[in-house]
């Protein structure tokens, strides 16, 4: 699903160039549940942004679904994200002025799907995360856990093959975090590739592949079988 070959990311700051990620090579197979772990500032979120096309690599090659997307334009990435990728953020990133239903339906707006169909699909996605009864509520009227469920419903509404989650349990208490993790596991079992950036050892343990990053380098890539050993 995701294949990175010698990928680097540098940011210019004044006349200096700061490397954030250096020579990253790894592979996330289709249908995998992957955790990206590492200390703060190690470049985890930058890596997730590269995977999601919110940012582009400075060097190296990135293959998404066997397609070389290293040099995709902003517009190409917008289309790719809309069809292939669902995002879940630590701070939920819901639009406060919209109802849960309208938030969930948002990716379909950019596919040109008519409002009636969008509404039906959004209600369906909200049912899947157990929030069918709160569809008309605004984000401010929902708890943190509920907001993250709305965000997950939004990530899965377009039926993307890949779900990228950046610290999805970071702002939630343990019990709620556990629920969200289970929800992501369920989606993974249904065939979606899920990549989670996390600090939580618990979340990482629940994943079948762990990519550990330190100082911009991949330190280890461990599959479930190896970890059992």
């Amino acid at each position, binding site marked *: 699903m995701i294949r990175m070959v010698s990928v680097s990311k540098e940011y210019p700051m004044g006349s200096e160039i700061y490397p954030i990620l250096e020579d990253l090579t790894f592979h996330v197979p289709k249908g995998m549940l992957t955790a990206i772990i590492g200390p703060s500032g190690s470049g985890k979120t930058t890596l997730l*942004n590269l995977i*999601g096309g*919110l*940012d582009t690599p400075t060097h190296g090659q990135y293959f998404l679904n066997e397609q070389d997307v290293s040099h995709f334009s*902003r*517009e190409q990435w*917008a*289309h790719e*994200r*809309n*069809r292939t990728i669902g*995002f879940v*953020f630590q701070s939920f*990133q*819901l*639009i406060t*002025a919209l109802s849960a239903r309208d938030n969930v339906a*948002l*990716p379909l*707006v*950019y*596919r*040109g799907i008519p*409002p009636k169909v969008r509404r039906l699909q959004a209600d369906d996605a909200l049912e899947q995360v157990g929030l069918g009864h709160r569809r008309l509520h605004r984000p401010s009227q929902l708890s943190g856990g509920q907001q993250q469920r709305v965000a997950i419903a*939004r990530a899965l509404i*377009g039926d993307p093959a890949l779900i990228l989650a950046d610290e999805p349990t970071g702002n939630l208490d343990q019990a709620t975090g556990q629920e969200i993790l289970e929800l992501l596991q369920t989606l993974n079992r249904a065939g979606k590739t899920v990549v989670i950036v996390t600090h939580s050892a618990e979340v990482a343990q629940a994943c079948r592949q762990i990519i550990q990053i330190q100082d911009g380098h991949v330190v280890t890539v461990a599959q479930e079988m190896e970890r059992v050993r």
Partner: protein
Amino acid sequence: MTWRDGVLLAFKGMAGNKLRAILTMLGVIIGVAAVIVLVAIGQGASSLVTSRIETLGTNVIFVSPAGGTPFPASEAAMITRALPFPTLVVPEMNTGAKVSTLTASGGAQIVGTTSAYIHLGAISIAAGHFLTPLEIAQDQHVAVLGANQVQTLFGGSNPVGAAVMIMGQQFRVIGALNVVGQGPGASQDNDIFIPMTVAQSLLSTTQLSQVTVKTSSPDQANLAADYLTNFYTNAFGSATAVTVASEDQVLQTLQATRATFTNLLAGTAAIALIVGGIGIMNIMLVSVTERTREIGIRQALGATREDILLQFLLESMAMSLSGGTIGAIVGVGLVHLVPVLLKTPAVFSPNALILAFVFSTAVGLFFGLYPAIKASGLDPIQALRYDG
């Protein structure tokens, strides 16, 4: 994103912050209403000129001396003789003067003329009678008052038989005129008509201000104008010593002045619209900043640059078009109120309505463009991190 979604989103955005939307639209509302009302007032003035052409006819020419050209009272008889066809020739000498009664006083335009003036058709008698040949021949101190003078000096009551003081001499009021109304040039409503013979001794001069010539047809008026122009050019050796203008020419000049006036009013209103547009741009820029995170979210979910551009552009256009619609309703309403409140004619112009709409749309498009470009150019990562 489809256009339909964009429009829906734009109106939802406005509905989400009604007070701000209304305050932002205010500039456009005022601008569009101003365009419609001011153009209507300008058109009203023009239509008055046109209606005067219709009542007076275009068979009148004006002959007046320029600068120090001698133009004695005998000039009227001279013109009558000079023209090869019968005409009505009316001499006039005008001056501004203080007038008073026992109870009131004011300023007036004193017109010394002959009994023929009434036949020009510009004025009509409301009470009493106009100057008669006998009164003029006998140098009688009699006066005919324009409608405003009746109002100022006699509070609107019938002045016939009463006395009025003009330049220290007492005159007997023999007639009052109907309202003429504001038209091209000065209105006769402020005039006081006295025998020309009396005016000559009162002003100690025989110099005429103007001679009005009325012919039996517009063609004859043009002919007379050409004839007199030649006549005076030969007499004084200069084409500018005496001005000969047909009613038609005078009115055309006035029409042109009115058109300039209308354009000036429309221009002023257009400035109001532009200021309204700047208001929209200002609020849209604030909106883009406030909604930076929303823009980031939309980008992460698949919105292209074009989608974001369209969203913000449609929002500013929705605002300017809504403002335009409200402004048009207010403007058309005011056009109906202006004649009642300001006693000025106003003629609604559909062109002004179309112009105002086109202009307000253009304002929304133009002033919405910069904020929309700014929004669509945001970096998704920065936008998602924005903590506003």
